[in-house]
């Protein structure tokens, strides 16, 4: 029971922009330590959904609860806002944009600690080193500005910064999409290790179904803001029920692939 009470429960989440509904009645549950993939074409509402979870966007309807605490209503006061920010942390696609170019890597992680935890300076510095070590960064990188690091290193900094808040849920929005294949594999391996060791839940937003196969337990397919299919990842990738899921799958390049199959799948969607 204790585990289940800490799960993330999202019910009938909605978001409208003008007369366009970007997210329609999206519901899902993320137990602690599990990993859920959110997939769908560009514009299907993936980012809008997770932005509401982290509080970057106000929902027009529905609830978001962690351990029964409602986070969808406006926060009352700074303490509640901070507590909410801690619980769900987000890593974006482009580490260039999400890191302050004038702040060293070490300071950037330290700021998060200072914000959330009362700590002695020495203890805080030690924790910074520990967090950076966890993502494979050393003293040299800690002293560097983000501009001096590679894309993969910057993405590690963004992950370390998110982990510093000791969140229950880590949201990764296309966090490996811009990385080179081998760096992408390094970051995926790192994320797998973190999930095993720290036991936090992952929400993995991506349109790369091959990545979903390897990093998620469950997957939710969004089309035009609605969930069309959801369930265990292997089941859905091996035996998709919804024609839209079949379209996504037939679009994935692989040996012997016929890109024309995707066009046929699109037509059968009507």
């Amino acid at each position, binding site marked *: 029971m204790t585990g289940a009470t800490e799960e993330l429960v999202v019910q009938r989440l909605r978001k409208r922009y003008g007369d366009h509904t970007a997210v329609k009645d999206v519901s899902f549950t993320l137990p602690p330590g599990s990993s859920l993939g959110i997939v769908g*074409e*560009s514009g299907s509402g993936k980012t809008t959904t997770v932005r509401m979870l982290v509080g970057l966007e106000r929902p027009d309807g529905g609830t978001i609860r962690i351990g029964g605490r409602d986070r969808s209503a406006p926060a009352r006061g700074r303490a509640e806002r901070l507590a909410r920010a801690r619980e769900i942390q987000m890593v974006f696609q482009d580490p260039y944009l999400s890191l302050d170019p004038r702040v060293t890597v070490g300071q950037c992680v330290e700021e998060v600690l200072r914000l959330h935890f009362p700590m002695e300076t020495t203890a805080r510095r030690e924790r910074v080193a520990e967090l950076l070590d966890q993502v494979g960064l050393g003293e040299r990188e800690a002293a560097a500005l983000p501009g001096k690091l*590679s894309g993969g290193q910057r993405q590690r900094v963004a992950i370390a910064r998110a982990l510093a808040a000791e969140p229950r849920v880590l949201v990764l929005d296309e966090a490996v999409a811009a990385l*080179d*294949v*081998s*760096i*992408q*594999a*390094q970051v*995926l*391996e790192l994320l*797998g290790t973190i999930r095993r060791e720290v036991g936090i839940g992952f929400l993995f937003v991506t*349109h*790369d*179904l*091959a*990545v979903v*196969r*390897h990093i998620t337990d469950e997957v939710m397919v969004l089309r035009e803001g609605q969930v069309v299919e959801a369930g265990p990842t*292997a089941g859905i*990738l*091996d035996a998709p029920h919804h024609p839209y899921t079949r*379209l*996504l*799958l*037939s*679009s*994935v*390049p*692989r*040996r*012997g*692939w016929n*890109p*024309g199959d*995707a*066009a046929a799948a*699109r037509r059968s969607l009507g």
Partner: protein
Amino acid sequence: MTEYETPALEIDGLGVRLPGEQAARPILDGVTLRVRAGETVGLVGESGSGKSVACRSVLGLLPPRARTSGEVQVAGRDVLAMNRAELAGLRAGQVAMIFQDPRASVNPLRRVGDFLTEGLRGAGTPAAAAENRAEELLDAVGIRDPRGALRRYPHQFSGGMLQRVVIAAALAGEPALLVADEPTTALDVTTQAEIIAILTRLQAARGTGMLFVTHDLELASAICDRVYVMYAGRIVETNGTDALFDRPRHPYTAGLLACTPHIEAAAAAPRPIPGRPVSLAEAPPGCAFAARCAHAQPRCSEETPELAHHGDGLAACHRADEGIKL
């Protein structure tokens, strides 16, 4: 075999080097690569390996003050020896290039119709005929209401739609060779499938040769007849697609395959290649991959392995004959 036919592209021993202290090693070193008419040839490798520099050399575009050696022949003529007028003719006619970001290829202030017809009009096609041709091309790349599209501006198109326009423009001059540098990397998976379907269909129908750069090995394995693998500015392995992916001879090729996530149910989890690629500031002796290679031996960091025949392909590894398994 049509060995006597002039290839669409023949790069022979291409070297590109920045002047003086700017780099410890050449950007490209002894790159030899061929694309025959109607063939799709892949060029893969990690970021910084030199794929884009190789592509751009085909249009005669080189880094400022770079020194070159070797030859780049398009339809039998050496691009590196061309003057400005000849290069302009080459780019308007025999070779067309498609880049990752379609917005970088079009002028945002000009209508799509002007962008599509400028090459044709420059080649002497009357305005009305050029417009009809542009309309046909937009139709061929799956743009609805092509006539209306000609009047619109680039910002009125999504990335995927604009990339179709760029492909239409690339095909307008009926080039012998298409150079596509990560043309679908910025697009989502279904749009990528649509663009690839259009590109491969039109290219096959016209017998155009295509050099296709990607870092997605799954995509390369899906559409290429042959693939070249590049590391630190050199071709380290090449073979027919199936042979290359079934039996890689070079540990770097095997490493790239192992770090690629595969969609198949039985696929192993992606495994990273240790370390990072060598930068331009580094020129390690011997094999450039040695510091990251699980199979390295003492001689690997002393003697540079030459590209040599192994089976039907070529590989530059001292241990290519031993049947590398990672």
